[in-house]
């Protein structure tokens, strides 16, 4: 069925191309950039409207826009939430460059706005299944241990789940955490977590905005099955120096930004570090003479973001962005010394060139690396283990606006991957015992894409495109055709209907049998035995703006087919295994559901209610006797309620409440006694039957946050109070069985116990900016 869809889609594409090429060009293009007047930062999602002509567009992630208008005198209205609306009257007799700097609306900002998308833009665009977020919005949402985390705020949106308590992993529309393409300034991030998945690596002070696609993927993105998360770092203030930071319970952070050449170039440097290791080290030192004391592990992470951007004349812009983050874990006791470090490094250089008002190109050179290393010594034995992935990427993207009915995007990309798998070395201190293993794999993937945002009628808009991909390594070559299509039908200026279809191929795979995002998860390429994964997703939805755009209501239904998804053989050995391809099994998946979302965008009380009803199933010949079983993160009901209320000019209070069906888990149903070859210690062996046939208890939790703006002569500051898990719900993280012994140490019965992670946790963070 899908192949037929593909075939008809390509026919349609072939039929439309001549129409597009032959289209008359009686219009002129108005293009430019919308920025913040104070910082010169680009504003994403700003709306540029020509009400008389019933035409509208919005800015992209770089704050740029383009709109085709007839030769006439036209009034443009430029608006963005929290900023003063402005008008420009222009005479369109040629292609015009129009840059506008918007000023913040102080009265507007007294009302708190937590919002995902610009609602007018959401109604008019063909793009669906998209969420945008800025750090400004995320800061109002209460956070675990006071650490603002953009990824965790995204988890409060419909269709997006966390893997478990406190996790920053993303499970999107039934996809696993390995199926998300996370891009930081275009550079792929292979492990986006600190502290074993509890915090994401994105420092909110360094981020400009986040955009997440959970369906209807634009043709410029590919390589993962379930989502694309684009994170743009801040450009830095081009007008004045600015210092920003915060001191929290577990971490402190500092950012410095400012102009290098006023109005032309700027920089930003941000860093943060956790510091509970300073306390635990001291505590361990105090107790070093206590023989019963178990030392507390030494843990900290630090990360740094830096970005420089400069305008090279009117038509060129250069941006250099880099990230470095590393986690350190150390545990020592007696003869046992365990060191575990993992790090991400990304860098990207992007050159933007404006050929003319119709054509813009962006060329990038990108580097990304992820590694982990374990060093362990026990007595006189040493071993080290590590794995990692390193990418070099080169890409060019073109935006072409030939006339008022078409916005064409074209691009090409090539990636060189290097995978280091299970570099293992063991030796004794005397070097009389030594063992080494490990494997290095190279691969290259390539992609070209084309898409056209076509407006044949005032009510209709169609985005069609295709992405051609290829993947080659020493053993094999794979290729794929990925059709993309989305359409919008505007019922009126408040209501639109949308539909989309997207096919995605995934050529690299994450070896993880944990169900959590752990640093030891290993990326592994497609090989002769590991075929690429594929997804096909259809979605349809309605978007309604209500009550003078104060509310937006959306509902989306999706169905996703997965083919070639990976899991592991029972008892697969992933750790220190260089031949992971022998451990994989391949299967199918189906994910479908309905996402309902109501958001209040303006007023003293703002926030949203999201409800997702969904099913996520998998099937593998080698697992569960070939029967269909629910994925661990299959969640029938998922509810999130976020509300923010402006108590006064200086105090804002936010509450969140989340509810989710418990994770599907496997528990033993029976046991038997194994004597083994000698009956020294009889083994009680659990018998597992159907995969994921049990459910953990339902998950629910309420958090409360309060932001109190302080009076300050030299800048702005605030105290942010958070209470995580206000009513101290003991949500189950996992369940296990234990023997209950009598006084003589003889087992008398067995019982189930549940383990929770976080009780009620209050926190306070001081933030400043000057």
């Amino acid at each position, binding site marked *: 069925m899908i192949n037929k869809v593909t075939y008809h889609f390509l026919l349609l594409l072939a039929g439309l191309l001549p129409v597009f090429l032959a289209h008359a060009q009686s219009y002129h293009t108005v293009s430019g950039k919308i920025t913040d007047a104070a910082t010169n930062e680009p504003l994403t999602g700003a709306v540029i409207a020509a009400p008389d002509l019933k035409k509208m567009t919005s800015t992209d992630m770089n704050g740029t826009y383009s709109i085709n208008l007839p030769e006439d005198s036209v009034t443009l209205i430029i608006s963005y939430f929290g900023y003063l609306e402005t008008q420009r009257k222009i005479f369109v007799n040629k292609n015009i460059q129009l840059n506008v700097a918007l000023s913040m609306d102080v009265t507007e900002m007294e009302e708190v706005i937590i919002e995902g998308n610009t609602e007018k833009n959401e109604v008019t665009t063909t793009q669906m299944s998209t969420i945008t977020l800025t750090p400004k919005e995320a800061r109002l949402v209460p956070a675990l241990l006071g650490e603002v985390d953009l990824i965790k705020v995204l988890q409060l949106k419909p269709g997006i789940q966390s893997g478990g308590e406190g996790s920053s992993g993303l499970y999107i529309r039934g996809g696993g955490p390995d199926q998300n393409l996370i891009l930081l300034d275009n550079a792929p991030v292979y492990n986006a977590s600190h502290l074993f998945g509890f915090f994401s690596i994105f420092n909110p002070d360094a981020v400009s905005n986040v955009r997440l696609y959970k369906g209807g993927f634009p043709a410029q993105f590919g390589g993962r099955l379930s989502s694309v998360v684009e994170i743009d770092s801040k450009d830095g203030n081009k007008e004045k120096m600015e210092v920003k930071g915060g001191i929290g319970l577990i971490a402190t952070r500092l950012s410095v930004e400012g102009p290098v050449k006023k109005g032309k170039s700027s920089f930003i440097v941000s860093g943060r570090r956790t510091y509970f290791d300073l306390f635990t080290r001291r505590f361990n030192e105090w107790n070093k003479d206590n023989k019963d004391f178990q030392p507390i592990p030494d843990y900290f992470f630090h990360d740094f973001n830096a970005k420089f951007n400069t305008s090279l004349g009117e038509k060129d812009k250069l941006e250099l962005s880099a990230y470095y983050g590393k986690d350190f874990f150390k545990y020592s006791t007696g003869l046992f010394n365990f060191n575990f470090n993992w790090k991400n490094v990304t860098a990207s250089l992007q050159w933007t060139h404006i050929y003319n008002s119709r054509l813009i190109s962006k060329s990038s050179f990108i580097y990304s690396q992820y590694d982990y290393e374990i060093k362990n010594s026990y007595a006189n034995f040493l071993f080290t283990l590590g794995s990692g992935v390193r990418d070099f990427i080169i890409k060019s993207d073109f935006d072409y606006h030939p006339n008022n009915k078409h916005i064409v995007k074209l691009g090409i990309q090539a990636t060189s991957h290097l995978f280091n798998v299970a570099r293992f070395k063991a030796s004794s201190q005397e070097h009389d015992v030594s063992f080494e293993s490990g494997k290095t794999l190279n691969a290259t993937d390539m992609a070209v894409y084309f898409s056209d945002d076509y407006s044949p009628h005032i009510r209709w808009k169609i985005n069609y495109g295709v992405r051609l991909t290829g993947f080659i390594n020493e053993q094999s070559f794979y290729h794929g055709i990925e059709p993309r299509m989305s359409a919008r039908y505007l019922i009126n200026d408040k209501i639109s209907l949308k539909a989309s279809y997207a096919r995605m191929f995934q050529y690299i795979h994450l070896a993880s049998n944990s169900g959590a995002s752990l640093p030891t998860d290993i990326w592994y390429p497609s090989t002769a035995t590991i075929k690429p994964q594929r997804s096909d997703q259809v979605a349809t939805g309605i978007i309604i703006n209500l009550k003078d755009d104060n509310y937006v209501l959306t509902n989306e239904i999706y169905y996703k087919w997965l083919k070639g998804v990976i899991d592991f053989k029972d*008892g697969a050995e992933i750790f220190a295994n260089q031949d992971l391809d022998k451990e994989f099994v391949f299967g199918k998946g189906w994910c479908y559901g309905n996402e309902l979302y109501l958001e209040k965008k303006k007023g003293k009380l703002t926030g949203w209610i999201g409800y997702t009803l969904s099913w996520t199933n998998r099937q593998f010949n080698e697992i569960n006797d070939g029967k269909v079983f629910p994925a661990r993160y299959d969640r029938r009901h998922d509810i999130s309620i976020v509300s923010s209320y402006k108590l006064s000019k200086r105090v804002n209070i936010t509450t969140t409440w989340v509810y989710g069906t418990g994770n599907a888990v496997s528990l033993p*149903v029976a046991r*038997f006694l194994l004597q083994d070859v000698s*009956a020294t210690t009889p083994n009680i062996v*659990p018998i*597992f039957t159907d995969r994921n046939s049990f459910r953990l208890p339902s998950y629910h939790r309420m958090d409360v946050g309060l932001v109190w703006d302080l009076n300050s002569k030299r800048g702005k500051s605030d105290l942010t109070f958070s209470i995580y898990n206000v009513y101290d719900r*003991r949500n189950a993280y996992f369940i296990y069985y234990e023997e209950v012994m009598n006084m003589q140490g003889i087992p*008398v019965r067995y019982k189930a116990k549940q383990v929770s992670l976080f009780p009620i946790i209050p926190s306070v963070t001081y933030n400043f900016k000057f």
Partner: protein
Amino acid sequence: MNKLILLIATIFLISCNMERDADVVLPVYEPELVVECYLIPGEPFRLSVHESVSYFEAPHLPEVNDALVTISYKGTTDTLEYLAFEDPVTRKYFNYFNSKLVPKDYETEFILEIKDKKGRVVRGKTKLLPIVKIHSIDFVYNSEGKGYARTFFEDDLSTTDYYRYQVTRDTYIGDEMQDFIFTDESLQTSSVEVGGSPRIFKGDYVIVTLHHLTKEHYDFLLSISYAKDANGNPFGQPARIKSNIEGGVGIFTGLSYDRKELYAF
């Protein structure tokens, strides 16, 4: 790896003490026959048959005493009669016995069949493997005076072999110093050296056993280990027991081992 992650998670969890009893309702469970039969050349045929139980049942060993147990080989079929007893050396419990001795024949296929009064039937087959001899043993000590036995043996690189290495103190069922299984798949030399963690003091009486395992026995032991790890480990993978018998759970295999007993020097 799961143990490593579990260690890290446990350290965090201990500091939180966030455990409580949970209500888990188990489905109705139909007990399976559990069989353990290890054929040792030169020793009588004997095995144990009992049942698995629903996890929350009170601890007891539901013995099966009404089964017809036969082992066939070389065209003959021997019946093992019900006889419950404990081996005084290994402390193992058996409930079916035939005094005929297991022949030392590495070519013969042994076929096990068990039928009980409830109509359950278990079948399995196996062959004996030759013993792999321990070449020599010495001891390596650290600065604290703790050491491990270093055991040398010759491996046949032309075949894939599976081993179990056990070290105990005082008696074969005494303090367990080492017990692990491994294969020769990643070994690059036929002269194999096996070590361990330092737990032995000079003068300890040490028993070193090197088992040559069938692949089925190795897979069974591995799956036992994974299944036990998966209970209580949030990062563990549920693993089914890989039995080499049909109609039940358990193992039917030969036991081929070389054993040395010595004082640590």
